[in-house]
């Protein structure tokens, strides 16, 4: 599903953020990415959702080398990837409902039964009362939940979530994690970057642990290796 081979990465001529990173995430696996602030978690996810290109090494997604994809191919591939951005990236002029439905529109799916599905999902993340609210009128945690709903609405094959519980309390965080597990059980490969070690301890999934430029393979990552190779 996701294969990194000796990937190094840095921004322009800056210091290396990721160095010689290799792993393979099997379809249907569930991984956490851990690491201190600035360790490169978001950068790693950006490589996976094709926002950045690796400075060295090779990445393949869905069995295809990303270096060889055309713009067109990339657009199609992005539709199979759901992303929860660390800074949400909601469209301020669209309601929560429209934001969540956006991936369906872009993919050209216009089935009004999907609307129901969107409403249901928003209720599930506790926003049933806010489906017509614009993002600027939502609290931080509410925005984050809209972002999560948008990432999962199209049943992506690969779900990438960057600090998806930073703005919600522990009870909600658990609830959201259960949502991710649910999706995972239905076949979605899930990768979650987080600081919340307590959360990670509760869910026995393999861990990719980043430590700046010299990436340490943690105990968790041993399990990654088991899951991936």
């Amino acid at each position: 599903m996701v294969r990194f081979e000796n990937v190094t990465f840095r921004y322009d001529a800056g210091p290396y953020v990721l160095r010689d990173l290799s792993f393979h995430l099997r379809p249907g696996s569930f991984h956490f990415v851990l690491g201190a602030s600035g360790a490169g978690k978001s950068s790693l996810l950006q490589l996976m959702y094709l926002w950045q290109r690796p400075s060295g090494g090779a990445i393949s997604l869905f069995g295809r080398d990303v270096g060889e994809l055309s713009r067109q191919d990339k657009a199609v591939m992005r539709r199979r990837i759901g992303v929860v951005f660390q800074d949400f990236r909601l469209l301020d002029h669209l309601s929560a409902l429209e934001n969540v439905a956006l991936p369906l529109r872009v993919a050209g799916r216009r089935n009004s039964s999907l609307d129901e599905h969107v409403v249901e999902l928003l209720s599930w993340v506790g926003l049933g009362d806010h489906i017509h609210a614009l993002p600027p009128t939502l609290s931080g945690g509410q925005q984050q939940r809209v972002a999560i709903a948008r990432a999962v609405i199209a049943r992506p094959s690969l779900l990438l979530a960057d600090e998806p519980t930073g703005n919600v309390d522990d009870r909600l965080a658990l609830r959201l994690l259960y949502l991710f597990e649910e999706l995972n059980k239905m076949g979605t490969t899930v990768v979650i970057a987080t600081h919340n070690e307590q959360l990670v301890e509760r869910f026995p999934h393999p861990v990719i642990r980043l430590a700046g430029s010299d990436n340490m393979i943690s105990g968790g990552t041993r399990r990654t290796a088991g899951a991936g190779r």
Partner: protein
Amino acid sequence: MIVGRRDVPLDNDASARFLPWLIGFMVYLAALALAAAIAVSNLTERWDKGLSDQVTVQVPPDIESDGGQDARVQAVLEVLRGKVGVVRARPVEPARMRELLEPWLGSQAATGDLPLPSLIAVTVDRGDPPDLDALRAELREAAPGATLDDHQRTLGRLLEIAHSLQLLAMLVVALIAGAAVVTVVFVTRTGLAVHRQVIELLHLIGARDGYVASQFQRHALRLGLAGGVAGLALAAATLFGLSKVFESGGEAAVIPDLSLSPLQWAILGATPVAAALVAMLTARFTVLRTLARLS
């Protein structure tokens, strides 16, 4: 409830309100400048056609004998008709002469007993003109006092002025076109800057470049057309008013003719369409270039 909204909220932008005004203003000015250029061109064409291949021979009146005048005119015509390079030579009717002199001598006087010189309008072949100096000498021999006037010289200056006015008008049109492109590029760039996050997000969730560009280009086309049509309507009204004013004073030869040919009206009518197309293509091109820079 999802369909019908635009993903990029351009309609709420300042541009939605301002671009039509600017485009309208530019189309208005462009249409006026174009009309001026066309009018001057019509005018010079009239001059060119009417006068550029014309010279005039003048035979002064012989006050003593009435018959002598006619004989002398005949002698002059004889000389002229044999010349290579002379296409036609024809005496100007006295009635026409009086008409020409009327603004200078007053209407009553022109009908009166004022003995006038005889004029002979000569059409020469400018491609192979006769030697005018030699011709002058010959004419003086045939009829003492006869002179030859080449309008080309005085006309040349007027034409020079007309052409530089025309050039200026076309320069103004070109400037306006340039300004319109600059404006649309600016508006589009600004739209991209204001909506950068929206565009990035659309890109990230798998929207094709064309999908994003189409939103901007439709926006620009609509605004451009709206402004352009309004500008043209105003310009047409202005031109119509001007042509009425000109007509009422239309006797003077120097006043340009504002009655345009259908083709010329079509050119004017095309300005808003051209403006809208320029706006649309500029928007599309600018968006695609910006998107290409995203991974």
